[in-house]
C-alpha cells in the first residue's frame, strides 16, 4: 500500500480530519467534437461543522463539483477525502454504501418517493440498511425539521416547502458527515425558500457540516463561507472572519 501524505499528516497532528478535502479536481466532458473543461483543478477543504456555499453562474461547474464531492460522479483527475478516507478509489458498491451512510443529499426537486409517506421517505436510507429502529429515528428527524405533525402524509399532499423538509429529514436521519445541498431553494418561492435556509442554518449551528450549491447570493449569505467558481476554477474564497 502506498503512503498517503495527507492521511499521514492527519495521524501525526492528531487533529480531527476535515469533513472533505478535495485536491486538484479535474473533470472534462465531450460534447460532440468539443471538449468541455467543467473543472480545471479545484482545491477545496470543508472543515467539520462548517456551512460552505459554492456559488457561480450556470455552467461554472458548481453542480459538477458537488456531485464529485458526493461521490455521484468521478473526477478525471485529483482526489476527494471524506473524513480522511479516499473515496475516489472505492468500488461502486462501497461508494454507494458510503454515500448512504455518511452523506445526506438535498436536491432542487426534492426527489421523494411518491408512494411512501413522509416518515417512510425520511426512513428510507436506514431501511436500505435494514435498521429496525428506522421509523423511530425518521420520526425524530421529521420532528427536528418541524414536520412531526405531517409524518403520515404522502409527498403529493405536502407543499413544496414541506416536501423539502422531508428531504432534509431524510438527509439528516443517518447523522451524516456532510449534507450536500444542490440549489435547495431553487424550486420554492422566496418565503418558503427562506424557511429552508433558516433550517439549514440552524442545522449547521447544531454542528452539522453542510455544503450548498447556489447561484443566488442571498441564499449563500446564510453560510459561514462562500466560494465562487468561474469557468471551473475557484476564483475567490471569502472567509467569514
Amino acid at each position, binding site marked *: 500500500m502506498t503512503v498517503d501524505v495527507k492521511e499521514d499528516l492527519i495521524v501525526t497532528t492528531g487533529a480531527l480530519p476535515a469533513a472533505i478535502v478535495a485536491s486538484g479536481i479535474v473533470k472534462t466532458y465531450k460534447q460532440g467534437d468539443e471538449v468541455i473543461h467543467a473543472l480545471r483543478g479545484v482545491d477545496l477543504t470543508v472543515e467539520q461543522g462548517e456551512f460552505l456555499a459554492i456559488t457561480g*453562474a450556470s455552467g461554472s461547474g458548481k453542480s459538477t463539483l458537488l456531485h464529485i464531492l458526493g461521490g455521484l460522479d468521478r473526477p478525471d483527475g485529483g482526489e476527494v477525502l471524506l473524513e480522511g478516507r479516499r473515496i475516489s478509489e472505492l468500488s461502486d458498491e462501497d461508494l454507494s454504501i458510503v454515500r448512504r451512510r455518511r452523506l445526506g443529499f438535498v436536491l432542487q426537486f426534492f426527489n421523494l418517493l411518491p408512494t411512501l409517506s413522509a416518515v417512510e421517505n425520511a426512513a428510507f436510507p436506514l431501511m436500505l440498511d435494514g435498521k429496525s429502529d428506522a421509523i423511530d429515528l425518521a420520526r425524530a428527524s421529521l420532528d427536528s425539521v418541524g414536520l412531526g405533525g405531517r409524518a403520515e402524509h404522502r409527498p403529493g399532499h405536502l407543499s413544496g416547502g414541506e416536501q423539502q423538509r422531508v428531504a432534509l429529514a431524510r438527509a439528516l436521519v443517518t447523522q451524516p458527515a456532510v449534507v450536500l445541498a444542490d440549489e435547495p431553494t431553487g424550486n420554492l418561492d422566496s418565503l418558503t425558500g427562506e424557511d429552508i435556509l*433558516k433550517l439549514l*442554518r440552524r442545522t449547521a449551528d447544531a454542528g452539522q457540516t453542510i455544503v450548498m450549491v447556489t447561484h*443566488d*447570493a*442571498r441564499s*449563500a*449569505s*446564510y*453560510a459561514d463561507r*462562500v466560494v*465562487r467558481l468561474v469557468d471551473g476554477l475557484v*476564483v*475567490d474564497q*471569502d472567509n*467569514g472572519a
Partner: protein
Amino acid sequence: MSVPYVLLGLLEDSPRHGYELKRDYDSLFAQSKQVKFGQIYATLGRLERDGLIDLAGEERGQGPDRKRYAITGEGVTDLEQWLSEPEPAEPNLQSVLFTKVVLALFSDRPAQPYLEAQRAEHLKRMRELTRIKEEGRLAAALASDYALFHLEADLRWMELASARLTRLEKEVKR
C-alpha cells in the same frame, strides 16, 4: 435626507425631548449606524425655525435637553406630503461602483481586482445582514431584507461588468 421627517413623525405621536427622539430614532431605524445627538439638535433647530415644530415646554436646568418639542399643523402637512410622495428612482450605490470601474479603466488601472474586492465586501455584509435577520425583530429583519435585495442587485451588476471589462476598456479609451 429623511431624519427631519422621522423626527416630525415621532413628534406627531407625542411631544418629546431630544434624547427621547434619539432613543426612538435608533430603536426604529438605526440598523447599522446610530443618529448623532448633534444632528438631532441641529435638525430640531431648523424645524423650529421653519415653523414645523414648536416648543411644548421648557424645564429648569442647563443644556438643550430641557426642551420639549411638539409638531405644528404645518409640520403635519409637510410630513404627510413627504410620506405620500414617491422618491426619484435613482440608483444609490451603483453610481459609485460604476464611476470606480470606468475611472480605473480610463486611467489604465485594472478594474477586476476592485470588483473582486467589492464583491467580497458585499458578500460579507450580506452575511452580517442575514445574521441580523435571524436574531432581530420583524422591523429589523425587513430593513435587512431591503439592504440584501439592493446588495444582490449590485452583485449582479458587478458580474455583468466583470464579463464586459475588455469591451468597456476599449470604449472608454477611444
